[in-house]
C-alpha cells in the first residue's frame, strides 16, 4: 500500500507526557519560567510567518496589524482568580480591565469592543453568574466599551475552579506604542502606587488580617492613557502595564527589548504604607507584586514634556499619585538597577510564585 494524499491526518499530540517535566504554577506566574515556556514552546513557527505589524514574535501586550493608514490592535487574556471577589474588585471587573488596559498599552485607547468566553463549573450558583455579568457591564461602561460577542461553556464539578473568563479586545490606533521603544535618557513614569492588587489578594489568601486596609487597584486606564498620549504627541516612547510579575517584570521586559538599562530611585516610587508593611511582613519586594490599574510609561523630550504627561495623568483618579521613578541609561542594557539612597542594587526578575519567607 502506498500513502494516499487524502489519508486522514494523524494527530501528533503526545498525550502520554512520558519523559517530560510537568507544567507547574510558576509557568503561569509571569516570571522567567512563563517566558521560557512561551518562547520555547508556544511561539516557534507562528512567529516565522510574516505579519504586517507587531505579531507574536514581539511578545508585546497584543498584536498590531496594519489596516490602511491605521493599526488594528488585538489582545486576549484569560482570567482566573481565587477568591473570585476581593477587596477593590472581582473577576468580572478584572476580565474587562485587563483587556482594555492591554489595548491601551499599545495605544488603542478607544476599544471597538470585547469578546467574552465564559467557562463555568457545574454547581456555581446562578446568582454568581448574574453578578459577574453586572460587574463586567459596569466596568465596560466605565471604559466606554461593550461586549460584542461571546461563548459559554459549562464543565463538570471539579474539572475547573469556579469560573474562568477569557476576553479579547480590538481597537484602532494611529500610532502603536511598543514595549521596545525606550532609549537612553527617557524618563520612566509609574501612574500610581505599586503592588496594591497583588498584596490585597495575597493578604486574603495568607490570612494576614490586613484585608480591611488593602484594596486592589483594578481599573480601566484607557481614558487616562488617551489624555496622557494627547498631552505630549510623540512624547511617550514605550508603555506597559505591570500586572503579574509586577513593575520588575515589566521593566525588565522593556529594558531587554529596548536594549537600555533602567535606574530606579527607591525614594520616588509611590507605595502605600500598608502595602509596604504587608510586603515587609511577607518578605516580598513590592516591585514583584502585581498591579491591575497601573501603567509604566517611557517619556522622551525633557522636563516640559514629562510635566505635561504627569499633569494629564494626575487629572484622573487612577493617576493621582503618578510620578517619575527613574530613567533609562546606555549602561547595563537589560538590567534594572535600584538606587536605594544608601546604596545600589540590581532588581531581580521574579521567577515563580511569590512565597512568604520564614522570618
Amino acid at each position, binding site marked *: 500500500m502506498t500513502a494516499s494524499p487524502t489519508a486522514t491526518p494523524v494527530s501528533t499530540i503526545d498525550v502520554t507526557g512520558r519523559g517530560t517535566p510537568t507544567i507547574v504554577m510558576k509557568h503561569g506566574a509571569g516570571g522567567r519560567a512563563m517566558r521560557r515556556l512561551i518562547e520555547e514552546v508556544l511561539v516557534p513557527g507562528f512567529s516565522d510567518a510574516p505579519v504586517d505589524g507587531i505579531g507574536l514574535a514581539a511578545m508585546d501586550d497584543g498584536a498590531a496589524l496594519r489596516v490602511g493608514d491605521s493599526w488594528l490592535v488585538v489582545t486576549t487574556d484569560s482570567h482566573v482568580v481565587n477568591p473570585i471577589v476581593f477587596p477593590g474588585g472581582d473577576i468580572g471587573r478584572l476580565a474587562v480591565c485587563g483587556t482594555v488596559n492591554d489595548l491601551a498599552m499599545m495605544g488603542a485607547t478607544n476599544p471597538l469592543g470585547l469578546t467574552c468566553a465564559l467557562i463555568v463549573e457545574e454547581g456555581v450558583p446562578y446568582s454568581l453568574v448574574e453578578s459577574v455579568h453586572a460587574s463586567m457591564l459596569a466596568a465596560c461602561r466605565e471604559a466606554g466599551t461593550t461586549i460584542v460577542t461571546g461563548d459559554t461553556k459549562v464543565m463538570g464539578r471539579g474539572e475547573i475552579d469556579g469560573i474562568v473568563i477569557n476576553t479579547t479586545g480590538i481597537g484602532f490606533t494611529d500610532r502603536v506604542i511598543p514595549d521596545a521603544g525606550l532609549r537612553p535618557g527617557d524618563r520612566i513614569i509609574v501612574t500610581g502606587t505599586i503592588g496594591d492588587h497583588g498584596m490585597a489578594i495575597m493578604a486574603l489568601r495568607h490570612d494576614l488580617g490586613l484585608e480591611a486596609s488593602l484594596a486592589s487597584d483594578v481599573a480601566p486606564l484607557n481614558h487616562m492613557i488617551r489624555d496622557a498620549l494627547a498631552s505630549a504627541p510623540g512624547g511617550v516612547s514605550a508603555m506597559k502595564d505591570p500586572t503579574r510579575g509586577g513593575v520588575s517584570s515589566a521593566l525588565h521586559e522593556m529594558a531587554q527589548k529596548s536594549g537600555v538599562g533602567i535606574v530606579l530611585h527607591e525614594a520616588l516610587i509611590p507605595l502605600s504604607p500598608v502595602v*509596604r508593611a504587608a510586603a515587609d511582613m511577607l518578605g516580598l519586594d513590592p516591585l514583584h507584586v502585581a498591579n491591575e490599574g497601573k501603567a509604566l510609561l517611557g517619556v522622551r523630550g525633557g522636563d516640559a514634556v514629562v510635566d505635561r504627561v504627569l499633569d494629564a495623568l494626575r487629572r484622573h483618579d487612577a493617576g493621582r499619585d503618578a510620578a517619575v521613578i527613574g530613567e533609562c541609561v546606555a549602561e547595563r542594557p537589560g538590567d534594572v538597577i535600584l*538606587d536605594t539612597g544608601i546604596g545600589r542594587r540590581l532588581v531581580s526578575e521574579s521567577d515563580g510564585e511569590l512565597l512568604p519567607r520564614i*522570618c
Partner: protein
Amino acid sequence: MTTVPSPAATAAESELKFRDPERGRALTSAIERTCDQIGRSPVTVMHVCGSHEQAIAKFGLRAVFPKRLDVIMGPGCPVCVTDLPEVDEAVVLAEDGVRVVTYGDMLRVPGTSRSLADVQATGAKVEVVYSADQAVRIARRTSDPVVFFASGFETTAVATAAIVLDDPPPNLSILSAHKYIPPVMEIVAEMPHTRIEGFLAAGHAATITGWGIFERFVERHGIPVVVAGFEPLDILAGLARLTELIRDGERRVVNAFPRCVTREGNRNAQRQLWRVFRTTGGMWRGIAHVPNGNLRLRDEFAHVDARRRFAIDLKRLWNHAPSALTQQCICGDIMAGISSPDKCALFGKACVPDSPVGACMVSSEGTCRIWHQYGGHPSL
C-alpha cells in the same frame, strides 16, 4: 519608596530615621577610614543572619562597602542548614497523608530525593504558614493529623515554644528542625580556612538571648562581636563599630542595637524556649556536626513531638543516589565563609531559584538566592 501621605505615615517616618542616606554616607566613610587605618586587605568579618544579608542586599549596601572590607554571610539561614534527613522526615509524613504545614522557604528545599513542593504537586497536603499561630489555626479547622515542620533559630523557636505551652489542639504535632546559633559560631571560628576577624551578631536573636551570651565566645576565641539591628543604618553602624574594635585590637562584645537588646535578654522568652526545647548535636547541612546546635522537644512534650507520635520510615527515600549536580554544590563552603556564590560553577546556571540545587538557592535567606535576586555585588 515614597510613602503616599496617610495616617500611618508616622510609622514610616520613624523607620526613615534608620534609612537616612546622609547618615548612611557618613557611616560608610567612617568604615572606609577605619579599614584604611587597619591597613590589611581584606578585613574579613562575618554575620550569621539571613535577615542581615537580606538588608545588605535589599538596600544595596555591598555597592558602598569599602573594597578592602569583606563582609561574608555565615551559616545564618536556618533553612539552608536544615539537613537532608530532616527534610526527608517531613516529606515522608506528607506522603503518608499527614497534613504538613511549614514556612514558605521550606517548601522547595531538596531532600534526599524529593522536596515538600514535589510531593505537594503530586497531591500531598502541604500548606504554607507565615506564623506558628497559623499552624494552630489550621489544626483547629480539621480533624486530620497536622504536623508543623518548624524551622528557624532562637527567634522562631520561641514562637514554636509558645504554641506548645498554650494547650495546642490534640491533632497538632511539631517536627522541630529548629537550630541554635551560638554553638555554630564556635565551629566556624575554629575552622582552619576561615580568617574571621569579627562577628556581626543578629539583633533579633539577641533580643531573646541577651548580648551577654557572646561574652564567653569572645573570651574563648578573641574575636570581637557587635550585635546589630536590621535597618541599613543599624548594619552600617554595627560594621563601623566592629571595624573600630578590630583596628584597636579590642576583644569584647558591643551592643549596637540597644533600642531592642539588653545584656540579659528576654527572660520570659528564654524560660519558654528552654522549658520546651533541649539542645542536641546534629548535622548542619554543608557545615559540620554541631554539638548542641539542634533544638529538640523535651521528653515532657513527647505528646506533641511528631518524631515520637509517628513512625517515620526514611529508608524508602534512600535508594536515590545524590545527583552529580548536588555533589558540585559548594553551599557548605559558602556558609563557612571560605567561598562565595560567584565561585560556584552551578550558580546562576544549573542552580537558579526555579530549580535550585542547594538549599542556599532556595531560601530567601540563603546567600546564593540573595545574590541571585539582588545581583551579588556588581559594580553599579
